[in-house]
């Protein structure tokens, strides 16, 4: 569904990516892990076309794309309902079918539909995140990309969002989750790509990943993971 090859990107003299490559498959959730500044967000933004790479390429299969940013922001003068309507029109979806999806997703996320009559800038941080999930998942994406998908969500909402991500995967979507939250990623993801200072430090399936970060000695998984991402 997606193949990233040899991505390089610098911000002025500072290299952010130094040859990142990996691929995503349909029906799998891939976690893109790494500490702050490892290059996760830059990678995500290049995949989505918000940034241009200095070198390397992104090959993406056809289909709809959903995107949940780390800190979603919307035009402050638009109400939630207008944003969803623009999204529906862009996707060419029928009104009745779309409204049904929005209703179902709102219920699944426990997102109060009355909020749609207000601009998202008036929502709480958690509701803004839920709205971003709502907008993207209503598209029934073939590729779902989420940057820090669980940031700003309370524990029950994290579980609901996780369930929806897994449902999207089971529907056949390729999912890329960028995060530094190890515990949540091991509950949600099938594959792992670990970035360290702009390069892929490790790439594996869940079992192999857990074996890799699980310490042979008495240390905990978190510490071993920190060792992996920090080198």
């Amino acid at each position, binding site marked *: 569904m997606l193949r990233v090859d040899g991505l390089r990107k610098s911000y002025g003299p500072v290299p952010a990516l130094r040859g990142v490559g990996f691929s995503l498959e349909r029906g799998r959730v891939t976690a893109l892990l790494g500490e702050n500044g490892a290059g996760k967000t830059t990678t995500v*933004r290049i995949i989505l076309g918000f*940034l241009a790479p200095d070198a390397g390429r992104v090959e993406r299969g056809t289909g709809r794309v959903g995107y949940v*940013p780390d800190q979603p*922001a*919307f*035009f402050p003068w638009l109400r939630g309902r*207008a944003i969803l309507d623009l999204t529906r*029109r862009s996707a060419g979806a029928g009104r009745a079918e779309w409204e049904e999806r929005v209703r179902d997703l709102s219920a699944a996320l426990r997102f109060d539909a009355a909020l749609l009559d207000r601009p998202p800038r008036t929502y709480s941080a958690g509701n803004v995140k839920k709205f971003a999930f709502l907008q*993207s998942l209503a598209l029934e994406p073939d590729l779902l990309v989420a940057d820090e998908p669980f940031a700003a969500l309370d524990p029950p909402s994290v579980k609901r969002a996780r369930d929806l991500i897994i449902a999207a995967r089971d529907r056949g979507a390729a999912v890329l989750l960028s995060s530094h939250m190890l515990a949540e990623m091991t509950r949600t993801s099938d594959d792992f790509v670990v970035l360290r200072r702009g390069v892929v430090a490790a790439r594996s399936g869940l079992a192999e990943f857990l074996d890799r970060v699980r310490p042979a000695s008495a240390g905990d998984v978190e510490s071993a993971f920190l060792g992996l991402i920090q080198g």
Partner: protein
Amino acid sequence: MFEKDVFPLTARLAGLRLRTSGLVLGVASALPVFLVVLGVKESPGAASKAFLLFFPYLFLLASQDMSASEVRGGGLENVLFLDGRFRSYLWQKNFVLAAAGGAYACAVFLGLAAWGLGRGTFEAASVLQLGLGLLAGTYYVAVAGALGLVFRAGSNVVVLLLAQAAALIGLILSTTFRTGFVDHLAAGRFPDLGSRLLFAGLAAVFPNLIVARRLLRGGPVVLAGLVLALAVQRACLRRLELRR
């Protein structure tokens, strides 16, 4: 880079923005009232002249938040603008705003023309003036768009207005120093290269000037400025990235 399929989204978004802008709506609603009052107190011809001179500012008002606020505010980092579609959206906004301003201006002009025809005061030359006013308005959109890639919402318009204020002060000073340029301007004749260049510079800062019948020759200058501003925007947009 500038995909056609983004156009319906651009048109819808720009239309929604104009409909939710109190300033644009207020000015667009107040202008016809002002023109009717002026037409009744003075003459329909006076109302028509005032309209033709000032309506390009409506384009400028509509262009107040062309780019920077949307780029920096994060609103473009959305599924609606993936794969560089944000560039198409920002580019196409020039044409949507110019078309919206043009439609409004033509509607008001038709009203004034009908009024003038009824009173027998309508002048056919005003159609040419309308055309040049539309050119000036489109130029405002393009320049505000180019400035909008650097300045935040409203600041791009303020920069243009400050430049106009500076130009006016310069004109006043030029009368003090008796350079004669104001006389050339009043006569609409620019005998030497210096005065022609000065007029070109003035028309670039204050494009409404070309609506005045004696200064119609400034049209090509504004047209050249429009092409240049669009070229600058296009070059900047090609390189634009969303790095909030």
